[in-house]
């Protein structure tokens, strides 16, 4: 291959599993000199795990990393830096109380002894240790150096001021300057660097990236903004569910195809799910059980209308950050809307809190299973009865036999594999933990279930089980709001699909199965 010479990084067959989750499965990635490679995929696709493997934060279970033609084992983040791999993180890990110059040059300060500049580079560690006792930081040179580095990035600021006094965008630039400075980086990883930048700043960053590209630095660029992918990248690597979908030349991959690759494409036709769906289509009642009229919250979601009928599954489709989760929090009451009215069971909602919501019969299975779902030290039984008990209050305590009865019922119903109801839920696999949370909400006997990414990070078998469960519940007269990053799944499970883009409801489809049509709406005018 002709390109072998310019390939500076090659990751082959990388796999990594965490308890309960296969985060990466046989993923390849290659990066050429002077190239910008975009790494895209929905949440949980494995992008960040792949970067962690590359930067030595995690060690892969299998697979090899070839760096500049040599097989390498990246032992630690510091080792990665020594190897010439630098990372600019989404949340920058800088010290807000130190000056800009200190942040950039920290650990490599220019030293002086009286009026002589002392260069410690290239000395043996022991000699360095001795000389260090005599010399002190040459502040003037340090500030000048920091200033010069930032000017190269097109930023002109007072480098002696504390970093915290500057905007997030400037901080991001400082992080980049540092990433470049510390390692003479050959490979630079940008982990969602633009999420906190405005348009001008983004442009500025892209100029810097292009400039670095000219110098021969290989750049891995992670972002959720697809138009930015098209703006700067040369090639695109797409991950989905921890697997490699493929690597493509940016010019040869249309926008729509990229989205299709990111969210997965259904190949099967009229499978079992579709049959159940058609059957349950008929049992949808006329009267709505949840109605939103102009409900919105500044900065979260523009006012939207939504009708949810008894026995109906409404899917929310949209890319990450399009407002899916925001709608869920408004309907559940973890956020209070600024405008509009929410009507549940013909009554306008006044009190917005999870507890009030549960009492109304509206429950939310949150997106973040670990942080907002399970209570990991409690047993399966306690996790299952938690919401039901919360709605009963402090004193109407379920007796132990009652608790076991409920827990055993749902363990059987949802086929939760656990040695016993007294097992701590943290010992269960991700899929089973998700089922426990579903059981918790089913036990609270809801009318409306909002499921935010209920199938994230769990295996295919359990996924299908959960999708079927949703439709079965609908058949029993319950209503569901189903949110997922995987469009295929949304289409398979929902009777009606609401499409969101840029925190706004932009369309609604009833019984639609044409992915292309929905994707076009998701992508908007750019498609």
């Amino acid at each position, binding site marked *: 291959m002709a390109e072998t010479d310019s390939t500076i990084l090659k990751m082959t067959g990388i796999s990594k599993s965490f308890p309960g989750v296969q985060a990466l499965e046989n993923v390849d990635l290659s990066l050429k000199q002077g190239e910008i490679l975009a790494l895209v995929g929905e949440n949980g696709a494995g992008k960040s795990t792949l970067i962690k493997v590359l930067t030595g934060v995690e060690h892969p279970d299998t697979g090899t990393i070839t760096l500049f033609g040599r097989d390498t084992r990246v032992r630690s983040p510091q080792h990665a830096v020594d190897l010439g791999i630098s990372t600019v993180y989404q949340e920058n890990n800088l010290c807000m109380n130190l000056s800009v110059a200190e942040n950039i040059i920290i650990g490599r300060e220019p030293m002086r002894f009286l009026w002589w500049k002392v260069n410690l580079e290239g000395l043996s560690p022991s000699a360095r240790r001795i000389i260090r006792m005599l010399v002190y930081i040459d502040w003037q040179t340090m500030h000048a150096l920091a200033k010069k580095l930032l000017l190269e990035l097109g930023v002109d600021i007072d480098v002696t001021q504390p970093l915290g006094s500057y905007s997030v965008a400037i901080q991001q630039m400082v992080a980049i300057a540092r990433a470049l400075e510390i390692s003479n980086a050959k490979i630079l990883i940008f982990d969602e660097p633009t999420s906190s930048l405005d348009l001008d700043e983004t442009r500025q960053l892209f100029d810097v990236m292009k400039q670095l590209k000219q110098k021969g630095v290989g750049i891995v660029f992670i972002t959720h903004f697809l138009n930015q992918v098209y703006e700067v990248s040369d090639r695109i690597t797409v991950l989905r569910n921890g697997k490699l979908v493929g690597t493509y030349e940016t010019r040869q991959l249309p926008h729509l195809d990229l989205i299709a690759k990111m969210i997965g494409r259904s190949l099967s036709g009229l499978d079992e799910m579709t049959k159940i769906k058609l059957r349950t289509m008929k049992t949808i009642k006329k009267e709505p059980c949840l109605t939103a009229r102009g409900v919105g919250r500044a900065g979260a979601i523009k006012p939207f209308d939504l009708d949810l009928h008894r026995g109906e599954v409404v899917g929310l489709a949209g890319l990450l950050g399009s407002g899916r989760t925001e709608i869920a929090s408004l309907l559940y009451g*973890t956020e209070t809307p600024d405008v509009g009215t929410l009507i549940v069971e013909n009554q306008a909602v006044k009190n917005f809190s*999870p507890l009030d919501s549960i009492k109304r019969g509206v429950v939310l299975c949150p997106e973040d299973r670990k*942080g907002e779902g399970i209570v990991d030290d409690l047993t399966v039984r306690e996790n299952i009865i938690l919401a039901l008990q*919360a709605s009963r209050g*402090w004193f109407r305590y379920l007796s132990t036999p009652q608790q076991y009865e409920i827990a*055993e019922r749902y363990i059987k119903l949802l086929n939760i594999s656990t040695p016993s109801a007294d097992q701590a839920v943290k010992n269960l696999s991700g899929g089973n933990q998700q089922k426990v949370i579903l059981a918790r909400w089913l036990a609270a006997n809801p009318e409306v279930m909002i499921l935010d990414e209920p199938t994230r990070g769990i295996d295919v078998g359990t996924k299908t089980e959960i999708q079927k469960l949703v439709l079965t519940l609908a058949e029993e007269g319950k209503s569901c709001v189903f949110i997922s990053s995987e469009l295929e799944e949304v289409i398979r499970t929902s009777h009606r699909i609401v499409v969101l883009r840029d925190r706004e409801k932009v369309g609604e489809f009833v019984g639609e199965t044409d992915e292309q049509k929905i994707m076009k709406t998701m992508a908007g005018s750019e498609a």
Partner: protein
Amino acid sequence: MKTTKPFISWRTITESRLFFPLLALAIILAFDLIFVPGFFNFSTMDGHLYGSIIDVLRNGSSIMLLAIGMTLVIATGGVDLSVGAVMAIAASVAALMMNPYVLATELPPNLAKLVFDPHFTYSPLWLVIIVTLLISTICGLWNGLLVAYGRIQAMVATLILMIAGRGIAQLITNGIRIQIFYDPYAFIGNGWIILPFPLYIVTVVFLAAWIITRRTAIGLFIESVGINFRSSFFSGIDEKKIKLLAYAFCGFCAGVAGLIASSNIKTSDANNIGLTLELDAILAVVIGGTLMSGGRFSLLASVIGALVIQAMTTSILSIGVPAFAIQAIKGVFVIFVIVLYSDQVRGFIRRITAPKGVTL
């Protein structure tokens, strides 16, 4: 539902939450058995029971009470540093109510006679107790408000009352150590009904705490909030109210301990009542196996933890270590506890009790 037939094996014993506190207690008592002659002797006088063991139980009652309240607070993921100061406040309030005349520096003879009369109190005893406990509960509520609704870190929030509390206690009594002569009040700390009276108080508070936490959903909610307050919030648990309750109860327990302590020494000594006792209470809870980060708790284990501390203090004194050196020896003991609770020792015990054929 199929359950395995319960049987007692070494394994089930060592996996119990009570195992390590009891082991620590057993080690200290074994030490006493060897080095302190007569430690296990009992004697009766007027039908009441006396002995070193009884002393441990009686002197440990304050720490036991504080540990019960502290357990709930720590289980929510917080800590209450102010319990010692709240004890002082309680003592001052009680003393003031019984003898407000003391604040007048030169008492006329007729009043002085009243003040030193062991059968006279200005307020009836039941009122003294109720008001004192009410005020200490309010102190706890204050902590709870700061932590739950003010979102201040527990360590910082309760530090406020820890520092201010002794000042408040002094203000209440106008800087005077009020002596308490009233006999029925002395019974709270010094009375005996076969066993020392404080033990009955501890038992009642313990049972009340156990019923509140284990016979209602409150215990489950406390643990849930301590493990993951966001998940608990999403599940509809009012995590703020739960925290408020825990701190209020902790304040209540400190109030009871303050009553006992002041009754013991028959003054309202705002400078010394409950001094550094908050640290003993926290240590007791830790020995009882509740994590400082919150979560699972056991009231009984905490009470045993309190007894471990008191037994240790008593035995150090009985082998003739001077009182001023106690803190230093206690430090050594804390090291011993840390070693006992370390992963290495736990792993060792798990290994030697592992069922045959099962690898861990």
